[in-house]
């Protein structure tokens, strides 16, 4: 061992490091290729539609896979339009739907199409049936069975059949399902057990996208790495934990930019590309960025086209009047503010012997929290006070309703607490609140709530834990009060109401384990109804039951702030839609000018 080594190494190493640091810039910036730069905050688990259940994976895979329907890009309130379907379905009753497929749709070229030397074949109705059977197949452990469960004639039986198979036995996908028929290649007939008015929303959902059987057979267990879809983009490169690159699918069918939009869209320049062939962007690149500071910095450098605003950087971007600061405007950054289909709450476990049987206690706790103050302290005003569970974004939201349980009223809360002591039959024990998060923000929120409850004379203890431990608590019904929220999958309040339906108790989505006969009856009735004033009335009735019964302390609805550079054209936030990159365009010259500076 030579004694000089360490010292010699040091300068050499430092030199390498310093020179390496002075490397060149992105080569693509110069080539004039239209590239859309995005970031990923969480990991993309896989790109098999059957198995996609998180927004991150959806936002990526939806550029490759398409479903029967999609949301209109510009129109508000949100509205569906056909995608792979040629038109809206036909059918005399509410039980049979006949979908005609758009002709000329082909799968992207992929080596899995061995019969055609890699050339993607035409999309047929059987591809949908195959994809949906995959979701039903118990052995596939799909996250998305909830979509079809108890809806389609024969599909639940198909699921039972797959469950009965022994290990090693293959599922026979040719086994007929009565409610899923393909009389010809372009016709799909779906027969339902009972009316299902939300069906089209769910058929706009990414997991219901058709999948080529050839791909599943060719790639086997690695199918999640090899998405083969019909959409505008194809996966070019995927380095887990690092980046995803997609390129334009040259065989994408003809699709055009919408020619009409909502009021104001034309003024905002969102209709400049009306009627043009989609997509515009040649390449989409996602960079994994898990932390706030680096994401913010690369956005400020122009290495991302759009970004949310991390809490720590809010005040640097937005002034007290909720306007974008002028430095930001000067950089060509624009601000978009829009409502989220989300509601956040402290939920009660109704099976808990203390809180579950004590309505005055729940109401008192709900009144103890000063929601406007909470919004100001914890969200930089990026939220609205909740009066119930349905967010303001929904047309069923009634702005007139003031829920007394959601008003800050410590005097009344103290009175209710006296009642609560009587109901409990003695002094109340300390109430435990489970919180999924151990970070500073979670702790500050915890302290705030502890103080609020202390103020009305109630002792609470906050239990901070990580997400899996939290889920364990919820799903095994072992929490007392829990901090949670829900973001709607589609614009129908049914998606919120199911959270209180007695058949959905834990481990299902009803984590409150709320059981109410009257509510259930209304839910079952409304669930089968198409949108109407009558249904809207029933939803209001249901929400009133919940407001009064107070299985949750409803806190706030989210409001999103998104920044984007002005070189990102046709950018309109959309809270339900995925696969939207095809509408967007990059003004490459503008980007170069502004980043070059």
């Amino acid at each position, binding site marked *: 061992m030579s004694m000089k080594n360490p010292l010699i190494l040091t300068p050499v190493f430092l030199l390498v490091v310093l020179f390496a640091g002075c490397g060149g810039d992105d080569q693509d910036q110069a080539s004039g290729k239209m590239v859309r730069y995005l970031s990923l905050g969480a990991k993309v688990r896989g790109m098999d539609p059957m198995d996609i259940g998180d927004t991150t994976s959806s936002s990526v895979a939806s550029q490759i896979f398409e479903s029967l329907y999609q949301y209109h890009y510009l129109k508000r309130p949100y509205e569906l339009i056909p995608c792979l379907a040629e038109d809206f379905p036909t059918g005399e009753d509410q039980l049979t739907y006949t979908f005609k497929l758009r002709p000329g749709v082909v799968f992207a070229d992929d080596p899995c199409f061995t019969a055609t030397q890699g050339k993607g074949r035409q999309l047929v109705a059987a591809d949908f049936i195959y994809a949906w059977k995959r979701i039903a197949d118990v052995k596939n452990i799909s996250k998305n069975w909830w979509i079809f469960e108890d809806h389609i004639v024969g599909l639940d039986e198909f699921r039972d059949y797959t469950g009965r198979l022994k290990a090693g036995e293959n599922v026979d996908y040719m086994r007929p399902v009565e409610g899923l028929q393909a009389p010809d290649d372009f016709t799909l007939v779906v027969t339902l057990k009972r009316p299902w008015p939300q069906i089209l929303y769910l058929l706009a959902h990414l997991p219901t996208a058709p999948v080529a059987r050839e791909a599943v057979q060719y790639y086997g267990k690695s199918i999640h790495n090899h998405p083969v879809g019909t959409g505008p983009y194809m996966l070019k490169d995927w380095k*887990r934990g690092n980046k995803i690159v997609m390129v334009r699918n040259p065989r994408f069918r003809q699709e055009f930019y919408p020619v009409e939009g909502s009021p104001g869209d034309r003024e905002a320049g969102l209709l400049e590309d009306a009627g043009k062939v989609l997509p515009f962007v040649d390449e989409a690149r996602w960079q994994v960025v898990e932390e706030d500071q680096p994401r913010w910095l690369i956005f400020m450098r122009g290495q991302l086209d759009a970004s949310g605003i991390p809490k720590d950087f809010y005040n640097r971007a937005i002034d007290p009047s909720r306007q974008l600061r002028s430095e930001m405007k000067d950089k060509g950054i624009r601000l978009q503010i829009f409502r989220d289909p989300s509601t956040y709450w402290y939920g009660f476990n109704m099976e808990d012997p203390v809180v579950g049987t004590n309505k005055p206690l729940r109401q008192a706790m709900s009144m103890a929290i000063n929601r406007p103050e909470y919004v100001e302290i914890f969200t930089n005003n990026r939220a609205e006070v909740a009066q119930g569970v349905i967010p303001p974004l929904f047309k069923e939201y009634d702005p007139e309703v003031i829920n007394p349980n959601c008003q800050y009223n410590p005097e009344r809360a103290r009175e209710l607490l006296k009642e609560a002591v009587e109901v409990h039959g003695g002094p109340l024990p300390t109430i435990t609140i489970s919180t999924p998060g151990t970070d500073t923000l979670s702790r500050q929120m915890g302290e705030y709530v502890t103080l609020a409850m202390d103020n009305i004379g109630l002792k609470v203890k906050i239990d901070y834990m990580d997400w899996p431990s939290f889920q364990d608590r919820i799903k095994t019904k072992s929490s007392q009060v829990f901090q949670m929220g829900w973001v709607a999958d589609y614009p129908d309040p049914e998606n919120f109401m199911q959270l209180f339906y007695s058949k959905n108790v834990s481990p299902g989505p009803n984590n409150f384990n709320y059981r109410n006969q009257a509510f259930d009856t209304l839910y079952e009735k409304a669930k089968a109804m198409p949108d109407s004033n009558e249904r809207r009335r029933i939803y209001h009735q249901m929400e009133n039951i919940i407001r009064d019964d107070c299985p949750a302390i409803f806190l706030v609805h989210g409001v999103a702030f998104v920044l984007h550079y002005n070189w990102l054209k046709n950018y309109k936030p959309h809270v339900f839609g995925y696969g939207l990159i095809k509408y967007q365009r990059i003004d490459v010259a503008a980007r170069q000018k502004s980043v070059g500076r």
Partner: protein
Amino acid sequence: MVSYIIRRLLYAIPTILGVLLITFILFNLIPGDPSYDIAGKSASAETIAEIRRELGFDKPRFLDTEALSQGRIAAAFDSQFFNHFRNTLTLNFPRSLTSHEPIWDEIKSRAPASLTLAAPMFIGLIATSIAIALVVAFARGSWVDTILVFICVVGMSIPMLSYILFGQHYLAYELGWFPILGYESGMQAFKYIALPCLLGIASGLGSYVRFYRTVMLDEMRSDYVRTAFAKGLSSPRVLFKHVLKNAMIPIITTLVLSIPFLFLGSLLLERFFSIPGMGSYFLDAFNSRDFPVINAMVFTTSLLYVLGQLVTDICYALVDPRISLR
């Protein structure tokens, strides 16, 4: 030597079994069931049951006593406990529960990124801190020593996160000397790892220099150093030849103890600079209770640790003639 290595590896068996036992106990104690995560937000009880069956959670925990009483020995040992040992020891790692990727494939693709960052960082850190420690030891008691030790103490008390936030903001964003984040494999990697490397070195320097300085000063008090000076050797000569080689022994110990951390990568640096290494893989796995992944990583790490200890012993023997591997 060969027989020594074989013997050492045999001694490692209890260690490895102990690690397996601990992981098994932890997986049973840590709250959180991966089934909920796999099943998604609107899961049915039936899906969760299927997942648990698939993961083998429905099997008896230790021993199927019923099967045992019926004399079906193989079936009796088809329990969570024995399967954990059997699968791990045969390196039969399943796919990740969340990404469905074969665990080995993902480790193989991520370990190079971690190493690309950690190895130069580590070598740089050791080399720089030994060099500084030698300078400090040489100038012991003088103002150079005092100032450097003071800087070390200050440096030690600043958390790594502050170095990262500062470095990324000022050196990368404001001054533009480095890319803000990113990673490419191959030669391109240097461009991306430069800043995280420097920050890692800067944040580690304080404690390393202080430690090595103590090691060097301890050695400098030795009689053989006095002998060396009495021969008429110059200070640098004494430091670099006599002191350094003797100081190698404690240094090697710290080096090898750090090998598992090289493998796990530097979590914070990897997160902030978007380096697709083992750190974020491990964190993700932990956050979704992806037990097969955690198990594979813990097991691999403990294997590396055992190997590291063996390497330490061999290095000791190379450096110190008093130690022989028998």
